[in-house]
């Protein structure tokens, strides 16, 4: 995909989910693959619930990471969503 539509609502695809919350390391699980999630990536994935638009995810993370350059936050989020989409971990509604 070129870049996610700002008004679309990303949702984790079937068979893609977080591991149990009580584990030390939060991981995004998908077929034969696991992606480690740290602060920002975890914040993004938690918002891929079919309710948040891409724009809302960007806005919320810009607020959380208020010390970071807003444009960079936007670029990083769009890049990460594209990566997840290429891995087929996201559907965009």
């Amino acid at each position, binding site marked *: *995909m070129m870049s996610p539509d700002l008004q679309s609502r990303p949702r984790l*695809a*079937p*068979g*893609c*989910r977080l*591991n*149990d919350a009580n*584990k030390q390391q939060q*991981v995004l*699980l*998908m*077929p*034969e693959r*696991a992606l480690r999630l740290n602060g920002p990536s975890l914040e993004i994935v938690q918002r891929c619930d079919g309710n948040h638009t891409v724009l809302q995810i960007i806005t919320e993370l810009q607020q959380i990471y208020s010390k970071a350059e807003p444009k960079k936050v936007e670029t990083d989020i769009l890049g990460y969503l594209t990566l997840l*989409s*290429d*891995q*087929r971990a996201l559907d965009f509604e």
Partner: protein
Amino acid sequence: MTPPANPLALIAELTHRCPLHCVYCSNPVELTNRAEELPTEIWSRVFQEASHLGVLQADFTGGEPLARTDILELIRAARMAGLYVNLITSGMPMDQARLAKLIEAGLDHLQLSFQGAREDTAQEISGTKSHAQKLRVLEWLKKVRVAVTLNFVIHRRNIDQIEEMLEIAESSSATRIEFANVQYYGWAFANRESLLPTRAQLDRSLEVIKNAETRLRGKIRIESVVPDYYAKYPKPCMGGWGRKLVLITPNGDALPCHAAKVIPGLHFANVKQSALKEIWETSEAFETFRGEAWMQEPCKSCDRRAVDFGGCRCQALLLAGDPAATDPVCSLSPNRSKVDALLADLNGSIATAGVVPAPPAEAALTKPDWLYRPNPS
């Protein structure tokens, strides 16, 4: 030596029973009898131990894992233990109701094997009529919520069907395709001369796959494994011996990989007697090729030794007679000439100027004398 990092995957080889008789099967030539299969309770304990050890995913495989009548309990037990559940299946012992129950039990991902793009190829390779049933499973999968991978096992008899395979995948709900070139272990090793693709076939297939990857980006994730006989360097087999995963056989033996029993003199611990943590950290079979102390030259001083770990130990045993040797598919291996000789036979000898080598077209068309994998008693 520092304890190894935790394994990430548990390969649960639940049974060697299977309705198919695929000539490329990587199960060992000596199949485990049904009577020796681990009961539900022991698998449940193994799942718990695996999760505590840090394992994230379980691969339910076999044989045919759906041959287990307790498959629903096993899926539930693995999910309760906190594992992500992959089911590697032929789709044969399945109907729409059973599929619904598998998903209800907590199945995360279903990987459906294909022996070809057509019924005649599938029947030749699997020794039974199987293709139509798989197409039915694809229809049922469209109506349920589960991750779906189509795994096309590739070899000389079907490598020219990649475009047709893509059509099947694209008209299904699959979000992932594996083009898995056969690797030569178990039954595949016995049938090797009939399975290896020609260089020309392989090159063409890579082109088709590369174009499809680009075209399908964002729609279907494509992964392909090339036959390493044609590679320059070996694969980092299993992510390194005893580094990333543990395989439990139907009777409970703990192996670093599915072929490890070909290596003579290795003693394998069994989950009936030992805890998984102890097996992973200290058992002889797991320790034997960890680290670099076991390496011979050229691996011992090679820049790639932490990249591919010297390749595959089982393949070194099968092709060079020594499990500690450099994997002979490596261009730096003193045994590479053995692999080259096999490929030269298959592909015809090098053309002298103006003389076109005879393509093995006839060899590709006539049906080989297959050694079919039987069902264990």
